[in-house]
């Protein structure tokens, strides 16, 4: 515990002539759960995409295990689980087929694990129903079933609780807390109130000032 897994050094990013963040520094350590906070348009998604290696027009450095992220992308990707706010679910496939493909890109698994994961997210009985016939929340749950299967050490989760009910969010929170304890580093954004112990918050302000606090009680001063 304690070594930074992922480190942001002097990150500057500008999109459409707007400065999203400048001189951002942060360290993500093993077992951290970090929630990115900020108003809409503050750059939360952009930061997550930068950290996952999808977006690369920025100044500054992202270090993964003390080495440049861009230099080890294949190794990095084998330890990364990224779930974007687009859920990557094909409507013309069943939950089982979707999950099998998405997991297949990442790691080996048993067929029975897929059924187990779908049952965990409350989709037992829906394994063979086409996703277009499922509700938005159920479709989201298909992509969240990956959380129960993934061996990745770094989870980057962008707005994953969209359309998920309260009990569902509580259930996934519990899973995230458990995973973090076993050494998975989790970076997420959500507009749900999370009630996790040792949640760290990284605040991105639209006015490009960065506030940071270490505890679960975060004091963000209003800025301009």
């Amino acid at each position, binding site marked *: 515990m304690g070594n930074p897994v992922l480190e942001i050094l002097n990150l500057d990013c500008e999109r459409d002539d707007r400065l999203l963040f400048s001189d951002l520094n942060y360290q993500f350590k093993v077992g951290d759960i970090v929630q990115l906070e900020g108003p809409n348009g503050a750059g939360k998604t952009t930061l997550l*995409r930068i950290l*996952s*290696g*999808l*977006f*690369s*027009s920025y100044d500054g450095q992202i270090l993964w295990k003390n080495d440049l992220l861009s230099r080890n992308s*294949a*190794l990095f*990707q*084998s*330890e*990364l689980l*990224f779930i*974007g*706010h*687009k*859920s*990557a*679910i*094909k*409507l*013309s*496939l069943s939950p089982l*087929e979707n999950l*099998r*493909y*998405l997991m*297949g*890109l*990442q*790691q*080996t698994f048993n067929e029975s694990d897929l059924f187990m994961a779908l049952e965990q997210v409350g989709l037992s009985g829906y394994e063979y129903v*086409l996703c277009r016939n499922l509700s938005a929340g159920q479709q989201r749950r298909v992509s969240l079933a990956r959380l129960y299967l993934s*061996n990745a*050490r770094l989870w980057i989760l962008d707005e994953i609780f969209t359309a998920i009910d309260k009990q569902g969010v509580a259930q996934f929170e519990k899973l995230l807390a458990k995973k973090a304890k076993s050494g998975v580093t989790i970076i997420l954004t959500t507009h749900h109130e999370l009630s996790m112990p040792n949640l760290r918050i990284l605040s991105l302000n639209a006015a490009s000032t960065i506030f940071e606090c270490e505890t679960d009680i975060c004091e963000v001063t209003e800025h301009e």
Partner: protein
Amino acid sequence: MNDSTSSQSLSAVLMHVLKRELLTAFRHRQALINPLVFFAIVIVLFPLGVSPEPAFLKMASVGLVWVAALLSTMLSLDRLFQSDYDDGSLEQLVLCPEPLYLLLLVKSLAHWSLTGLPLILMSPFLALMLHLPPEHLPVMLLTLVMGTPVISLIGGIGAALTVSLRSGGVLVSLLVLPLTIPVLIFGSGTVQASIDGLPIMGHLAIMGMMLVLALTLSPFATAEALKMSVSN
């Protein structure tokens, strides 16, 4: 240490990609039939619109089959990455630890086997309808087998470049058509040479070269273009 237990073998990943491509295509059968119907209609309408004279049709048959094949393959290109881009699965593909160009090569081959291959199977009937001498059918089929994958592969680059644009459809054709013209020229040229009783090995060698170049180089270009499109 984690690697040995959790990482996939490359071939297993490629199988997953191939299976999914075929499965999604199978669930959207209508989109598969579209280019085929287009192919048939163009060839059926041509004699009605221009001239039903056997001598004329015989002369035009090869070029016509090739042009129709090129255009109908083009029709199906904008579908190649669009839905994957819209629902976010393209991000997952880019983030897969296996080499992206191999995944894309499999995707392109799946695309070809769903559009190019049925078209090739249909082409002998349409060519005979246009009075192409039957003894030249094998040569025509051979050029189509060598040429249509090139169109799919080159088209993949164009589709990858334009996938993040809202109205990429026309742009793909504009970008890709000029690059596929050599395929068209040598494809129909080979069969024409065979009809004229000229040696065709030289033509076939050039077509083979184009196929090998497209197979080996275009997936890299497609991969880079996709990474760019996804990062928008």
